[in-house]
């Protein structure tokens, strides 16, 4: 229901990845892991056209966009079907929590303001921030800001939510509440692609873990399999490095 076919991205002369393929079903949760600079963020950003791929096709439901021929209208449609959660939240500083969530519904979906605000209030309740509806981002903790960021993504009613290291900027005390909200979404069968270094979280919620290295998908498997019996030596090396400090062992 979501698929990337032969997606290629270059920055100038540098080839970040070429001919990447990836499929996922509705309700599926994929976690992407891999070393720094491998192209994980760039891949997510290509799905939402924050970066324009040089070539390849991206399909979300019945919307199929060919990177080489994508029009502005295609891109806007694709963006509305793929919501993004950023490492640095990216909340609108001049908008309250409620407005941050309702903005897209009002401006992009052209929903009447009252209806959008009512939906935003519902979402605030679901993310546990009903009492912060009129607060501006500057008055909120990192964890609260990121939950609003997730609320804004929920409001898009997108087919898939893309998370780029959603907890990496957070002070440790706020990580848990954000991961819990994501687990709640997982329980509701929200389709998600998540780039994260939280391996325990990946084990808990992922249907499939994708290991990327140097612009390639090296290996993908359910977490039980990938974490306990990685096949490729590069996956083994990466997991050994990242899991060793936590005391977990990798065969």
């Amino acid at each position, binding site marked *: 229901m979501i698929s990337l076919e032969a997606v290629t991205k270059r920055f100038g002369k540098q080839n970040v990845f070429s001919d990447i393929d990836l499929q996922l079903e509705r309700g599926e949760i994929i976690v992407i892991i891999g070393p720094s600079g491998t192209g994980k963020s760039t891949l997510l950003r290509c799905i*939402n056209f*924050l970066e324009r791929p040089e070539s390849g096709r991206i399909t979300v439901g019945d919307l199929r966009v060919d990177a080489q021929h994508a029009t502005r209208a295609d891109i*806007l*449609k694709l*963006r*509305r079907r793929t*919501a*993004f959660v*950023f490492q*640095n*939240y*990216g*909340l*609108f*500083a*001049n*908008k309250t929590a409620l407005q941050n969530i309702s*903005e*897209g519904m009002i*401006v*992009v979906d052209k929903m009447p303001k009252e209806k959008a605000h009512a939906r935003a209030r519902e979402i605030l309740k679901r993310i546990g921030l009903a009492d912060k509806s*009129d*607060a*501006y*981002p*500057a*008055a909120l903790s990192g964890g609260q800001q990121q939950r609003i*960021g997730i609320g*804004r993504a929920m409001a*898009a009613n997108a087919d898939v939510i893309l998370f780029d290291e959603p907890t990496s900027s957070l002070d440790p005390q706020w990580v848990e509440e954000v991961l819990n909200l994501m687990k709640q979404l997982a329980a509701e069968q929200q389709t998600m692609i998540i780039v994260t270094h939280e391996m325990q979280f990946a084990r808990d919620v992922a249907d499939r873990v994708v290991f990327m290295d140097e612009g390639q998908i090296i290996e993908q498997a359910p977490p039980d399999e990938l974490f306990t019996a990685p096949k490729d030596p590069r996956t083994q090396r990466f997991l050994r490095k990242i899991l060793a400090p936590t005391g977990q062992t990798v065969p």
Partner: protein
Amino acid sequence: MLNLEYMWDLLPVLLSYLPLTLEMATIAMLFALVLACLLAVIRVSRVPLLNGLSLLFISFFRGTPLLVQLFLFYYGLPQLVEALVSINGVTAAVLGLTLHFSAYMAESIRAAIVGIDRSQTEAALSIGMTQSQLMRRIILPQATRVATPTLMNYFIDMIKATSLAFTLGVTELMGATQKEASSSFLYLEAFLLVAIIYWVVVELLSWGQRRLEVYLNKAYQR
């Protein structure tokens, strides 16, 4: 020494020209704001061709004296464009002030826009907003807030700069003073009085500016 009685009698006369001065400054300020936002957005978004023209525009209006620009519009342009022969001094002055100050203001607004962190732009685009929705709803409201103290300074400068309109034959505050002084020969009294009037107006505005700044610093913090 000073003829205080003359000054006291002159005060209401001069004050009756203050509205015209404030009017010219206010109208020029409003036009300049719109133009400056436009120029700033063009510069930030690097709109092809228009970006080059904006750069040229900004460079010219910052690089030449305001008085020269005013003379160019009032005395020079009509020679080129027949329709402008009937341009009056007030219009020429407002036009000159608008263009001159928009060039400066464009740069402060541009700096304010560039100062807004990139993540908000990406977030707005990621939810499907267009470039112009992003500008109108997210970037410009924040940028104008950041730039407001600077823009207020330009408004104050603008009020003082309206005095140059008298060189185009406009009887505004300065023009009126000039006339009064040359008929009474009491130059010191007349120019001292007009200086005080400008000074008080500017002080009042500076006070307002400080209040506004305190308010703006608190904005978006709740």
